[in-house]
């Protein structure tokens, strides 16, 4: 709505002047005033971009969604997206030490890889927490097959994964989401936004394609 106002701002002002002569009710006048003020609110000197930049810093690792940004600034989501794109482009420059990522629909500042060795030195941390092959396989199965039950995951992996699921839940990489209709009504699992963030995914559509296996004779080299 604001966007339309933006485009029509001058028009509105003109309209208003014309209409003044036509004896507007004070109520009508107020509405127009309001609309104009609303339009000005975040426009001056591109305050929207400035405010989004500031919010991005404050929220840090929590990030901010388009919906939140548009709600808080009183601008359309399209407009918010544009502003984020402009900021994103500015921070993408090689000379900048951090950038704006959007994984899983949440915008957040992240330091660039070049900074990492120095951050390690500053915090005197050893290498960042890794992830095991077992955890990766379990996560992959859930991400591609969700919602999925524990038994179904175990069938694919061929090993029990009760403890692994709890660990992944504790790391906020998966969550329970309802129960299956199967006998015993087992819990269904799915991946979280944190998973998306940890694997640099904007959406699950971005998951690498599963390799396809042709069951014909020329697929012998599968295991090379």
């Amino acid at each position, binding site marked *: 709505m604001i966007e339309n106002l933006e485009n029509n701002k001058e028009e509105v002002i003109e309209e208003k002047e014309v209409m003044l002569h036509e004896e507007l009710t004070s109520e009508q006048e107020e509405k127009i005033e309001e609309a104009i003020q609303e339009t000005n609110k975040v426009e001056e000197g591109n305050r929207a971009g400035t405010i989004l930049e500031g919010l991005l*810093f*404050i*929220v*840090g*690792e*929590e990030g901010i969604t388009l919906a939140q940004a548009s709600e808080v600034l009183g601008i359309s989501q399209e407009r918010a997206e544009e502003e984020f794109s402009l900021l994103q482009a500015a921070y993408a420059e090689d000379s900048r030490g951090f950038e704006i*990522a959007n994984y899983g629909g949440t915008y*957040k*500042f*992240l*330091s*660039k*890889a070049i*900074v*990492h060795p120095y*951050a390690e*030195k*500053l*915090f*005197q*941390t050893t290498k*960042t*927490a*890794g*992830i095991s*092959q*077992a955890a*990766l*396989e379990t*996560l*992959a*199965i859930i991400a*591609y097959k969700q919602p999925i039950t524990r038994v179904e995951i175990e*069938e*694919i*992996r*061929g*090993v*029990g994964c009760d403890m692994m699921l709890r660990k992944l*839940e*504790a*790391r*906020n990489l998966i969550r329970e989401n309802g129960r299956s209709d199967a006998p015993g009504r087992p819990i269904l699992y799915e991946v979280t936004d*944190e998973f998306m*963030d*940890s*694997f*640099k*995914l904007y959406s699950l559509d971005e*998951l*690498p394609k*599963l*390799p396809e*296996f042709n*069951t*014909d*004779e020329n697929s*012998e080299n*599968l*295991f090379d």
Partner: protein
Amino acid sequence: MTFTVAIDQFEGPLDLMLHLIKEQELDLFDLDISVLTDQYLTYLNHMEDLHLEVASEYLLELATLIEYKSKKILPKDQSLLEDEFEEDPKDRLVRRLLEYQQFKEVSEQLSDLYHQRAMQMSKPISIEVDEWTKPKTEDAPIDGSPYDLVKAMNKCLRRLQLSKPIETKFTAKELSMEDRSLQIKARLRDLPDTFSFETLIEDCNDMQMVIVTFLSILDLARQHTLVFTIDENETIWFKRG
């Protein structure tokens, strides 16, 4: 034959089977279950000989393999009868192996993404946010997750780490070549007529300082404050110039 890969290197029985299939150059689409079963059994026995623990999952799959192998040698009419009621166990095994192989492959790609992401860091949410948030009433039940605790703990640890001076020898690293040259000149008075490079670096507590010392010496030699010779043992000896 010898098995070079220990059982704890496998993620489970399917992973082990894929390894054996590859090693034996078996055709997954025309799988010889008898060969696979024999290899699988030999491998598990070998691991037990090495006193490596074989998890129950491996034995469970072994039972399935043996069951299939024994069915194959049963009279045909009986196996035909059973096939009408359930998926051919061989097809089922091949399907499972293929599916598992798929996830094993994509998890490698996911691993790359994970490591790329791990190189990027964020900051905790700003503390000023606490003033702006209106926490629910004190008695309201907490809807937390272990992850909230990790984040809070990490925040404490970061803060703690930054509040401490970096534990390295600032004095040593801050030392300029000029200052080091002055130090060396001062020490010359107390040193014997001839002394080794090792003597000069006795007071260095890290490599940086050794390098500064070395560069300072080069400088002093250039100014003819010091002269040096290198003996046949490659020890550098210094004398006042």
